[in-house]
């Protein structure tokens, strides 16, 4: 096994990983950085974010507004010290990206423009048309090329963290071109591998979002926090799950049921007029909108299609010019993939799994409980998102906490790390390689990767969807445990060392099974309804018992153990979430 010596290994080269790498390079250009990713940086799923990134910049807005929108949006499960830090650093980070060339959309006078998003009292979402994540990712990637200390390892699939006596010493990864396993020996590691939407069958998430980094940290002993909170975005295209940005409602789009009725007024989000207006109707938070769809469906007021029931997102009143200027990608996606031009027809949409609020448990400096191990972006849980993330906070989050992870790791690497027994590190790396080789060389086996993945997906959709209950979650965890057993008998047909996606797919599936179990078990234990976690058998929020973060601890043999830690409340006491007319 080849050993690559570096100071800081970063796993994942999307928005958070790139931002972290640049932060390290700026703190100390002599620190060697290995930026490791299973895909080329510009393929990372940050690329698919559409609507924008939140940061207070305009005179009519305030930090207080951003704070309260975020905390209430998260149903008071956010750590308020983290939120405060986040909202204050947000404008500087977004401005920095502007200085690096991000083509933000502009006001006539040349200032950066903002648009409204769901759950926001004042419009504060910076946007680059409806391709914000794309532009942000490419700006970061292109800027990263300035720094010679950032060495990229594209298409290296990370498998295991090397943790000895509570300290991280590096990571092992498969070079996909050759199949060789390498040890990245480093003073610290930053995980920035994104979310795990692919554990569900219907998701906006790209194929690569399989929770590898989450699972890697989890297996290394870091708990996964608040995994029961999975965000359904209310507007995905049926069939493919392609995201239609919340920006389309921010610009004035409306949602109607099969009768052409703006049904959100029946779910504490009305009255419908005047429209558009903030924190009401279609600009309510994502959890409420997705839940309203579920109720409409139960009432038989949705529209049935070959790909499940839908409602209509109607943008026609915006007119062609505005749609072309502000939402060109929405028009293109809808026209190509379902043959509906939103200038002339309403777009059929349904709720779709979009974002994992939970993730690797970190503090506000992106540090985990393992010394020298950091995490940032969607794979991490700081927690600023609580029980429901506010739309357009996640792009900002990966900048703010990506940068903090980079600075924290740089400081850690610079202050002279004590030597550790090299033999122990080599032995741990060897064990990781052996595990991969064992899987790779296995013959026989009766379970296919695609078959197991489908069963896992189905179990999650049936058991841990928008609404859950004791029965469905219990069945889901049992099925997942069976799938975990069946996985031991997985069949690997491809025996080539070169770009073996059969092997990578099997490793990704292993990660997803672990992450799915953390989600389902955390959801089973939380006997209340809060934000995106809705229990039919426990419909009320229960602050006395559950105003706390869940922590799922990995178990090599069975389902995870769940315990809890406190929520940091500083200046906003839990209250009722109020949207629509009642808040005005």
């Amino acid at each position, binding site marked *: 096994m080849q050993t690559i010596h570096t100071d800081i290994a970063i796993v994942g080269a999307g928005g958070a990983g790139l931002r972290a790498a640049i932060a390290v390079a700026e703190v100390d250009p002599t620190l060697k950085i290995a930026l490791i990713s299973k895909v080329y940086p510009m393929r990372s799923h940050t690329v698919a974010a559409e609507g924008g990134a939140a940061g207070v910049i305009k005179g009519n807005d305030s930090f207080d507004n951003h704070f309260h929108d975020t905390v209430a949006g998260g149903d008071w499960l956010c750590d308020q010290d983290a939120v405060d830090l986040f909202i204050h650093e947000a404008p500087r980070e977004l401005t920095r990206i502007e200085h690096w060339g991000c083509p933000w959309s502009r006001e006539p006078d040349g200032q950066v423009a903002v648009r409204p998003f769901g759950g926001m009292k004042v419009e504060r979402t910076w946007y680059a048309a409806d391709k914000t994540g794309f532009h942000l990712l490419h700006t970061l990637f292109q800027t990263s090329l300035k720094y010679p200390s950032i060495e990229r390892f594209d298409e290296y699939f990370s498998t295991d963290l090397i943790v000895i006596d509570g300290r991280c010493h590096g990571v092992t990864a498969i070079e996909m071109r050759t199949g060789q396993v390498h040890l990245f020996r480093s003073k610290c590691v930053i995980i920035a591998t994104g979310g795990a939407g692919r554990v569900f069958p219907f998701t906006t998430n790209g194929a*690569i979002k399989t929770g590898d980094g989450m699972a890697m940290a989890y297996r290394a002993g870091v708990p996964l926090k608040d995994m029961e909170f999975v965000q359904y975005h209310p507007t995905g295209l049926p069939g493919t799950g392609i995201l239609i940005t919340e920006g389309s409602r921010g610009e004035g789009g409306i949602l109607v049921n099969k009768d052409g009725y703006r049904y959100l007024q029946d779910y504490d989000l009305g009255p419908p007029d005047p429209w558009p207006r903030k924190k009401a109707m279609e600009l309510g938070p994502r959890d409420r909108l997705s839940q309203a769809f579920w109720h409409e469906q139960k009432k038989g007021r949705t529209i049935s299609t070959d790909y499940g029931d839908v409602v209509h997102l109607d943008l026609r009143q915006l007119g062609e010019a505005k749609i072309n200027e502000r939402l060109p990608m929405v028009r293109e996606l809808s026209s190509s993939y379902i043959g509906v031009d939103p200038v002339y027809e309403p777009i059929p949409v349904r709720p779709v799994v979009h974002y994992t609020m939970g993730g690797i448990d970190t503090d506000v400096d992106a540090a985990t409980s393992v010394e020298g191990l950091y995490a940032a972006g969607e794979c991490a849980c700081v927690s600023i998102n609580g029980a429901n993330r506010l739309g357009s906070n996640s792009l900002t989050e990966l900048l703010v906490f990506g940068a903090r992870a980079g600075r924290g790791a740089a400081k850690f690497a610079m202050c002279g790390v004590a030597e550790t027994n090299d033999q122990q590190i080599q032995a741990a790396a060897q064990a990781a390689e052996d595990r991969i080789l064992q899987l790779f060389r296995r013959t026989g086996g009766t379970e296919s990767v*695609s078959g197991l993945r489908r069963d896992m997906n189905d179990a999650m959709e049936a058991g841990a969807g928008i609404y859950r209950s004791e029965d469905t979650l219990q069945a889901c965890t049992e099925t997942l445990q069976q799938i975990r057993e069946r996985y031991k008998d997985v069949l690997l047909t491809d025996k080539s060392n070169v770009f073996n996606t059969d092997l990578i797919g099997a490793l990704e599936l292993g990660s997803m099974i672990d992450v799915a179990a953390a989600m389902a078990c955390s959801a089973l234990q939380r006997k209340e309804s809060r934000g995106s976690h809705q229990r039919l058998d426990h419909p009320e929020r229960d602050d006395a018992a559950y105003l706390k973060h869940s922590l799922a601890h990995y178990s090599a043999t069975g389902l995870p153990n769940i315990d809890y830690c406190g929520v940091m409340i500083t200046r906003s006491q839990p209250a009722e979430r109020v949207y629509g007319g009642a808040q005005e």
Partner: protein
Amino acid sequence: MSERVIELDILRYDPEQDEAPHFQTYTVPYRDDWVVLDAINYVKDELDCTLSYRWSCHMAVCGSCGMIVNGEPVLACHAFLRDYPQKIRIEPLQNFPVERDLVVVMDDFMDKLSSVKPYLVAREEKDVDDGEYLQTPAELAQFKQYTACINCLLCYSACPQYALTESFVGPAALALAHRYNLDSRDVGRSVREDVVASNSGIWECSFVGACSEVCPKTVDPAAAIQQTKIASTGDYFLKFLMPWKRQ
């Protein structure tokens, strides 16, 4: 009524086993709303898990799934089965070495992309606390089109000049350099010039325009290259007319 099916002829190549690439035929169900990528995923999941290819977003923005479908470079996630005949031939992108099956080696492209210094060289250094650089919508419109490149490599696959001359910097990288050169916040044109205006840069382009025809994001790299030629020529003459003026 039996379900309609189509045939995919997919180019296979495993350097560890095959002396040369060969086609393998798969029969897959036809669905009116499927893209070629859906059909390939069907092969992977149901018929042959050894098939290797890249994909992720399935919405034409990550740029992973460029391949040759019936002779044309396309994104597999944006090429609909309904637009093709009963039999579809699928090959890896041209002008790149094949790593395995539909996966090409893209090192050369990555090197070229970074060679043009595709990052902002600021007109004036400004602290983030002093806010953003102002840029009017008209100034943004000057270069916006050239920011849309998703690095899918279709233009390199289509480019006859890149096929002939491997050193050619190529359409996407030159378009990206042009994007920064046109940005009102940028003054980096002179530092990009040594690559952009070199013998391997814009002057290598013979203006066939195939790059712009296949671009799935209508970036129009051919136009970017022609505009750069004009700007570069201007620089060249200015050097004689006004030698005191820094480029």
